[in-house]
């Protein structure tokens, strides 16, 4: 617990899991959850570096902003998802392939 | 106020353009008189500047110097010396008169005058900037309004002409930009300040660029950039087309001011900053000047379109400037700058006169007139005066500047000067021939009711005529204005070596 690497490994794992979620899930809400995981991983890194390397509070501030960003992002994303649902009756991302055309 | 004269004189037209943009488009007279008032005010300011200006020293005066983009050492640096002072006056004067020439623009007057004022600001800015970056910005600022002014309000082939003008000059600008950046990166510390660059001049002669002498490479880059504006053979072909298609006032500005920016660039940037290269390139420059003189005059002789003829005469006349400045002698240099000013006034007159007849007859075919001096005697008289001024008759300012160019160039480029004197005969040839075909002989019955030149048109012409005549009889005021700066310039450049003569 007093070693930076333990935090970094945790963060890396969290990030990978989040990434996996984003890449593989079909459900949009699940993907959103993956994004949250990724953001959390980043946050852990910021705070950890703040404690172990830079020795100031800048990392903390960035975390605060990320959290705020996450909140905003979640709100907007959910709104979009709701629209998608209203439009199609489901929220399966792999079927939202209008980009293909 | 006096400390900021130059910025005021430069940015006043931009302010005017904004004001005009706010005027409702139906208020035609407001727009026109607004433009006239703005340019008139600018002219008054320009005269004030000359009054404040101390012409006994070659120092840069009325300096405005601020940091602008400090990270890149870009400065807002304005100032004038004896080289730019005549150009400032010329720009203000021609802009003012050109407003009256464009009185009868038929469509979208609001846009026209707003763009015109923007153009005015760009030109003025070029002549007062002492920071290369600022110079370049104004150089480009001027390009865009010009494109629209030709492209929208021009003649039948206007789009082609505008695009050609734009691409041609843009091509030049790119090379100019390259040269500018090369100068910036070679200088230590990196700077765009022209005065500091000139002080570091020896560095450019020593460095290498693309495996060649940096000074020479940069000189060539800048040369092409400026040569297109002058225009120097073989970069001249945009000119006849742009002049012919542009509306009269724009032709006036093109010939009167824009062409001068090329030669001004040589004298302001290339010569003092790249001395060795300037001396190395003096002989080719003189040869190009000779080609311009003869080629332009011969091409003018062949034209049937009056405006094209005048356009080619510009090519010929700018050749004298090149010849005079290449020689790097006091007489040649003063003659060159004086010729820049004189060509500004004379060619402006010529284009205005062409515009007058075009407005009435709706064509410019030299062969298509004949004997019209009978119905429009005043117009014929004024045209005769302008033509004689154009062919360098003593008593008009063009004579003095051409003579000075020759006198200055002769000791250095003896043979070139001797061949260049042929230009005198050719100039007389095409002007007189055109005059004869238009005004003399039996009256063409189509033009029995041709309308005489009106007071508004005369109002634009007479100041130019008076200046041309006055400076032809008594050139001292103008020469005093520039001689100390130019003599200094000659000394500075000459300090780097001898010009190879021919």
């Amino acid at each position: 617990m007093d070693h930076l690497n333990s935090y970094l490994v945790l963060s890396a794992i969290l990030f990978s899991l989040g990434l996996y979620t984003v890449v593989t899930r079909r459900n949009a809400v699940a993907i959103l959850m993956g994004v949250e995981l990724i953001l959390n991983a980043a946050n852990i890194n910021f705070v950890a570096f703040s404690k172990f390397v830079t020795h100031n509070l800048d990392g903390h501030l960035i975390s605060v902003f990320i959290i705020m960003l996450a909140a905003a992002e979640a709100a907007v994303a959910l709104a979009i998802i709701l629209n998608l649902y209203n439009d199609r009756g489901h929220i399966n991302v792999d079927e939202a392939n209008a980009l293909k055309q | 106020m006096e400390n900021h004269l130059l910025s005021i004189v430069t940015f006043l037209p931009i302010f005017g353009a904004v004001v005009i943009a706010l005027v409702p488009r139906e208020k035609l007279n407001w727009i026109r008189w607004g433009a006239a008032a703005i340019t008139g005010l600018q002219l008054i300011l320009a005269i004030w500047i000359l009054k404040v200006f101390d012409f006994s020293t070659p120092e840069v005066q009325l300096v405005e110097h601020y940091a602008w983009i400090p990270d890149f050492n870009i400065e807002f640096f304005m100032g004038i010396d004896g080289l730019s002072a005549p150009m400032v006056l010329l720009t203000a004067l021609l802009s003012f008169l050109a407003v009256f020439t464009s009185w009868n623009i038929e469509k979208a007057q609001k846009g026209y005058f707003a763009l015109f004022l923007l153009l005015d600001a760009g030109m003025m800015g070029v002549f007062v900037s002492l920071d290369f970056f600022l110079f370049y910005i104004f150089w480009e600022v001027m390009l865009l309004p010009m494109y629209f002014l030709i492209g929208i309000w021009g003649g039948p082939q206007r789009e082609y002409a505008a695009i050609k003008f734009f691409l041609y000059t843009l091509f030049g600008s790119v090379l100019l930009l390259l040269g500018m950046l090369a100068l910036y990166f070679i200088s230590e510390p990196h700077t765009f300040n022209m005065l500091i660059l000139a002080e570091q001049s020896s560095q450019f002669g020593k460095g290498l660029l693309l495996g060649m002498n940096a000074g020479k490479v940069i000189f060539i880059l800048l040369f092409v950039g400026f040569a297109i504006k002058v225009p120097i053979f073989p970069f001249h072909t945009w000119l006849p087309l742009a002049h012919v298609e542009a509306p009269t006032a724009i032709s006036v500005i093109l010939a009167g001011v824009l062409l001068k920016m090329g030669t001004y660039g040589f004298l302001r940037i290339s010569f003092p900053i790249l001395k060795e290269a300037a001396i190395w390139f003096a002989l080719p420059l003189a040869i190009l000047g000779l080609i311009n003189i003869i080629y332009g005059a011969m091409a003018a002789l062949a034209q049937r379109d009056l405006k094209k003829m005048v356009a080619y005469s510009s090519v010929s006349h700018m050749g004298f400037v090149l010849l005079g400045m290449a020689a790097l002698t006091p007489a040649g240099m003063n003659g060159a700058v004086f010729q820049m000013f004189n060509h500004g006034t004379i060619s402006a007159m010529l284009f205005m006169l062409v515009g007058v007849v075009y407005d009435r007859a709706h064509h410019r075919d030299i062969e298509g007139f004949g004997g019209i001096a009978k119905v429009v005697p005043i117009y014929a008289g004024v045209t005769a005066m302008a033509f004689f001024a154009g062919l360098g008759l003593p008593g008009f300012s063009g004579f003095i500047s051409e003579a000075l160019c020759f006198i200055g160039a002769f000791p250095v480029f003896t043979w070139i000067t001797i061949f260049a004197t042929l230009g005198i005969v050719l100039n007389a040839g095409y002007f007189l021939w055109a005059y004869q075909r238009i005004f003399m002989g039996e009256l063409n019955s189509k033009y029995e009711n041709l309308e005489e030149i009106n007071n508004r048109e005369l109002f634009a012409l007479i100041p130019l005529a008076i200046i041309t005549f006055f400076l032809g009889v008594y050139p001292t005021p103008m020469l005093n204005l520039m001689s100390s700066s130019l003599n200094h310039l000659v000394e500075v450049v000459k300090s780097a070596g001898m010009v190879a003569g021919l």
Partner: protein
Amino acid sequence: MADFIFWMIWALIVASAALVAFGNNLIHSVFALMGTFLGVAGIYIFLNADFIAVTQIVVYVGGILVLLVFGIMLTNKIQSAQISQSSVQKGLGVLVVLGVLAIVLTAVLPHNWVGGTTPMAFDDTVKGIGRLLFTDYLILFEIASVLLLGALIGAATLARKEL
């Protein structure tokens, strides 16, 4: 003791995140996500970041998670208590994500951080954050507030039925 708690939290985070990633039931995933969030808050406490920890709980658990639950509820038929979920391209995903993980770890772990990695204990982060927030990060702070407002309005607009 502290070490033990730390590693417990560590494991909790990894496990709950894995459930989020691999779980078949969406509802389970959401609750697992709550575990992760809380775990991360714990980690923050170990990092002397008490303010962040509190924020984490308030915003994530109190805000985002609720939103997510609402999202799920609104987009699924209420009758189906078992809200299953499926995944695509699992194999490739695993491969790639493992690759990424390997890259991150190989890049980060052997790295020699400038200034070393001696931990420093902060006394009172709230005060420091507050000061920074209203001095160096003031503009960012204001922008953030605008962003939030924008998100608020945007979300409200998007979520309206008749778009």
